[in-house]
């Protein structure tokens, strides 16, 4: 009897904690979405339901262009960062004779602990002086933002790949080798499928990091390279903007769809 009461208490406490916790996480976003349908220029005064701000959002050239730029930079940066992250992952876990291993670990992980404001400042000063000395990059723009984003994403991808490579059983590869499998074949038939999920999640992480970055991009951007966060920040720095509410709702929708598809893929994998 007492046990049941204790268990009920525990269950109650658990549900209570989770409810409060998740409400805290979701309340602000959901309010923002609700008010994106508000037909009033003053964001928080409810006037009526409308899609007005969505229409205006899709007619706002500046935001659309920035969205396109951001997607382009984010996918390129994620791809390059993933390739280099995989290289780092392999060199740190597979090459036992790599000289001065701690040094390479230090090299590859220090961008993880660098505040973005310092990273942005140092990259900007670097681009300016390399322009002075060798004339490259000729001007600040999408290329400089791309280089900066690759630089801070590599470390994150490398960590993900490294943890996967170091946790899986190397004997499988050795067994394949003993059975006479060609090294290339080993890579494509055994190693690649094993690290593929981490490669995908590394790519996604690098993509979101780039899409989300405001500070580094603000430092390294130039004409014609306004990313979405830069435009949004300039809109909401001093006040509120109903168009940004609509934008949040759309981004939220994309994220939820992505999350649901990841969930479904995971579930079907588990069933298999």
């Amino acid at each position, binding site marked *: 009897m007492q046990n049941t009461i204790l268990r009920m208490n525990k269950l109650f406490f658990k549900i209570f*904690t*989770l409810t409060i*916790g*998740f409400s*805290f*996480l*979701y309340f*602000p*976003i959901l*309010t*923002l979405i609700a008010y994106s349908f508000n037909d009033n220029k*003053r964001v*928080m005064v409810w006037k009526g339901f409308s899609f007005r701000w969505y229409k205006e959002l899709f007619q706002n050239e500046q935001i659309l262009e920035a969205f396109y730029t951001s997607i382009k930079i984010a996918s390129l940066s994620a791809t390059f960062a993933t390739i*280099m*992250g995989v*290289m*780092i992952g*392999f*060199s740190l876990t597979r090459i036992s004779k790599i000289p001065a291993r701690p040094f*390479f670990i230090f*090299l*590859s992980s*220090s*961008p993880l*602990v*660098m*505040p*973005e*404001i*310092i*990273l942005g*400042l*140092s*990259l900007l*000063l*670097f681009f300016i*002086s390399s322009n002075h000395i060798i004339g490259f990059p000729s001007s600040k723009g999408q290329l400089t933002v791309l280089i*900066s984003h*690759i*630089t801070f994403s*590599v470390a994150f991808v*490398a960590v993900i790949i490294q943890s996967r490579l170091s946790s899986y059983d190397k004997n499988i590869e050795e067994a394949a080798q003993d059975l006479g499998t060609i090294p*290339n074949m080993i890579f494509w038939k055994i190693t690649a499928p094993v690290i593929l999920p981490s490669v995908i999640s590394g790519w996604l992480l690098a993509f979101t990091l780039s899409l*989300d970055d*405001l*500070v580094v991009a603000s430092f390294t951007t130039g004409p014609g390279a306004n990313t979405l966060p830069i435009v*949004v*920040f300039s809109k*909401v720095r001093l006040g*509120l903007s109903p168009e*940004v*509410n609509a934008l*949040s709702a759309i*981004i*939220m929708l994309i*994220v*939820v769809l992505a*999350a649901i598809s*990841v969930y479904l893929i995971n*579930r079907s994998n588990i069933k298999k």
Partner: protein
Amino acid sequence: MTKLNSNLMIHQYFCLMIRYLKKQNFWFVFTPYFWLVLFFFIPLALIFKISISVSEWGMPPYRDLFSLSEEGFKFDSTLSNYLFIFSDPFYIRSYLNSLSLAFTSTILCLVIGYPIAFYVAKSQANIRIILLVLLIIPFWTSFLLRVYAWKVLLQGSGIINSILIHLGFLTEPISMLHNHYAVILGVVYTYLPFMILPLYGYLVKFDLNLIDAANDLGAKPVNTFLKVILPLSLPGIIAGSMLVFIPVVGEFVIPEMLGGSDKLYFGKIIWDEFFVNRDWPVASALAMSGIVILVFPIVIFQLMYAKYNFKNE
């Protein structure tokens, strides 16, 4: 015979390819490190160089460290930028503000995040995966928009004010924005997933039978928590704390959007020193001292982690 021949050819072909790949190994291994040296360490060295240069009007707004003129070779360096920063309480206070913001919000994230991570990790498998997806969604949603959401909520005409007035706690709306409590709230809100996810990662691996075992042996719940659960989730606590503490020290966006003039933070000072005052040497000196100040907590975290690993081995 021909079949054997072709097999041999294929074999030779692969041998050649492998040799080729082995030659490429050098680039395969070192390309990313070259990249990091070029675009991470050289820029850092450069801001160190600029931080000990003398400010000057012009473009770039500092004097070169080494110069060769009619008078001969000259080495021009100064510590005055650092002396300037550390003699002005304005800068010191901004460092302390940033450190205390990072410390407070890390503790708050831990206190709020731990029970959530614990209960998510201890749920049944099918509920757990849904809760996990619910945790990841805010993590993926744009950081800037989540900060903006609080800006909307905390407005004088915002929903929190309306609720408080409706409930009779307030008679007229107050401005909850533009003070350092709003900044702490914004930081805790945006960085909470960074604390919960690593904690979850460690707690989910944790064997529930250990709790039962501790209970059966007569341990009080408090002791079970302190002596069994907490030590086992320590790596998660350390990882989560680092993920919150380090970026918050340099945080610029949240103080800029939610904060006011009551407390200035390190990130904002660098930003202004560079973009508003255009004083590159002082901005660089601020950044360098920021790195030095950050190194201490990271070393402490690392030592804690090493100690933990040592104990477990």
